[in-house]
């Protein structure tokens, strides 16, 4: 597979006289394969938008290498711009123009045929409201217009920064269908979002960023598997035996979390060893299931942003990985 998007060691430092330096991107790496829907995840302020802006030539990086469709950026940006459709964080439009005028002007600047405007308006469901001024649109309608503007060029690479922001449930589902359809037709999609259930449903692979560095990447199943490894839920026939079982398992070196009616084990290689161990103690297992971890919990763990009772986590309080790069070696 060829990479449509490659980023290596990207750095962007904001300097201000009053507040000193802020390393928004601190040696960030990313790779997106052709034809994939790629989720780009990270806590607030972790550098997602900064990455995308840098990629699109809106801000200058301090160092690092970037390439889109095999062409080095920012040098080759004018050449590839026609193949990259993007929205960057709730894009703003000139409020007094209608959606049709807005897209029409973009299409004209990009030398696209006029009927393409109506096609994308239809696609995002704005057909009947396209003549109204953008100022009068609701949040979700503006977001749909933004998606339309990104789709207008029929790009090879579609970059969407929080496209679901403000969409209604029907719209989100529709967007999901649209993404799938686009990627089936060969478009590569990079999607930044905080709605992880959504990402898990539509993305083939993900990159997770925290404090300007990559903390995990790879196909969704692999990232999940790497973190659901050895998680097992155990129920016994008699609830009263749970403490005894927990004791026995702990002694055998298994990490145990006791819940009211079951045990959660982690670090289990073969579930069979658990049932044998318990049987030796005369405890009978009624359920022994590997637990599927969802992307949300993996994300919270990797970025260390799970809420802790009684504490208010501040932005920028998240996992910091070594300069060396990512922990573990999942995925590509």
């Amino acid at each position, binding site marked *: 597979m060829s990479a449509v998007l490659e980023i290596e060691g990207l750095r962007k430092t904001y300097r201000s006289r009053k507040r000193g330096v802020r390393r928004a991107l601190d040696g960030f790496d990313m790779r997106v394969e052709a034809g994939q829907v790629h989720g780009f995840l990270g806590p607030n302020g972790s550098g997602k938008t900064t990455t995308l*802006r840098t990629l699109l030539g809106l*801000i200058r990086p301090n160092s690092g290498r970037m390439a889109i469709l095999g062409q080095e950026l920012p040098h080759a940006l*004018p050449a590839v711009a026609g193949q990259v459709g993007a929205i*960057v964080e709730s894009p703003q439009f000139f409020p007094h123009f209608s959606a049709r005028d807005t897209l029409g002007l973009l299409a*004209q600047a*990009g030398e696209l045929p006029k009927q393409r405007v109506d096609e994308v308006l239809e696609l995002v469901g704005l057909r009947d409201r396209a003549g109204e001024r953008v100022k009068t649109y609701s949040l979700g309608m503006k977001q749909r217009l933004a998606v339309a503007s990104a789709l207008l*060029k029929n790009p090879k690479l579609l970059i969407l920064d929080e496209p679901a922001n403000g969409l209604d449930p029907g719209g989100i589902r529709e967007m999901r269908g649209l993404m799938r359809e686009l990627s089936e037709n060969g478009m590569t999609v990079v999607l930044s979002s905080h709605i992880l259930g959504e990402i898990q449903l539509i993305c083939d692979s993900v990159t997770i960023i925290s404090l300007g560095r990559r903390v995990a990447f790879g196909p969704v199943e692999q990232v999940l598997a790497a973190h659901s490894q050895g998680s097992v839920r155990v129920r016994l026939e008699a609830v009263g035996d749970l403490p005894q079982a927990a004791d026995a398992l702990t002694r055998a070196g298994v990490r145990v979390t006791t819940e009211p009616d079951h045990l959660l084990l982690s670090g289990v290689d073969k579930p069979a060893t658990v049932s044998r161990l318990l049987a030796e103690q005369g405890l009978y297992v009624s359920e022994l299931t590997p637990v599927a971890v969802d992307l949300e919990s993996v994300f919270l763990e990797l970025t260390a942003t799970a809420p802790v009772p009684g504490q208010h986590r501040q932005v920028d309080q998240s996992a910091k990985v070594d300069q060396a790069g990512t922990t573990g070696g999942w995925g590509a």
Partner: protein
Amino acid sequence: MSLFVTELRRLGKRRVTRLMLVLLVVGLATVATAFSFSSEKLSPATVAAAEAKANNNYQNSVKEWQRSVSECEAAAARGDNTEERYGPNCGKDYQPQPDMFEANWYLPYQFDFRAEFPMFIAVFAASVALFGFIVGASFVGAEWNTGGMMNLLLWRPKRLTVLGTKLAALLTTVLGLTVVLGALWTAAFWLIASQRGSTAKMTAGVWRSIGLDGLRALAMTLLVAAIGFALASLGRHTAMALGAAVGIFAVSEIGIRIAVAVLGVQFGDRYVLSTYAQSWFLKQAELFDYHTCQFSQGACEPATYMVTWQQSAVVFGVALVGAVAAAFWTMRRRDIS
């Protein structure tokens, strides 16, 4: 090319452009119409009436003078002191003369195209320049401020080309408007002059001079529009250009005036921008220094300093190049968010 056409279209679609255009046209039309009422063509009858009035006033004042002289003589005969009230020799030396009552003082105002149209070119240029400044500033300012510029750069990542094309679209529009409205303006005043005024002595040389005035006016409108555009692009907000304009005006017309007065700089007005605007339109502006006058020695010949239109060209040229270069330089350098 497609970008240029797009930007022309965008400029034309903007509400500010349309609104300001309506205001400009209505304003200019109002000035021309109102002015046409104040001018009146001189007919032999009006000239005769004015001559009669001048003569009448002359006669009246002679009578008045005679009455005053005889009063004075009567008083002198009574032995009163008349010197104070009637002047020496009872004011006999001050008999009113016919040339003190010129007929054309009593004529109604008549517009003289040759002598007065150049001033109206300046009025026109100032109006169109104001239009260009506001439209130019808001064209790029609103674009920055609403994120339109960022959207466009996602399509056309060459920043300097994008900014340059926008500027070109603006200047083309202002150029077109100045030419079209300027032609209408000239036609309107020619009409006023031929119907209700005078078009006398319009030689080819006069027309050429008016043509040159028009060219300088055009250059002024383009310059002001470009500077408005550059300032708004630098500040990334329309209000920045308007604020800068107010600031420059205040500093130049008030601050510098006060400063040169306090410091006693000779010909302080040569540091004031409006002097250069004036000399640009009138080909030169003469500054006087009345401090050099010795009024005690009779009529004064103050020292003078001449500001030529070429000097104005240098001043405005430097301002233009500075503002536009700064706008392009920051466009190249700065992050866009």
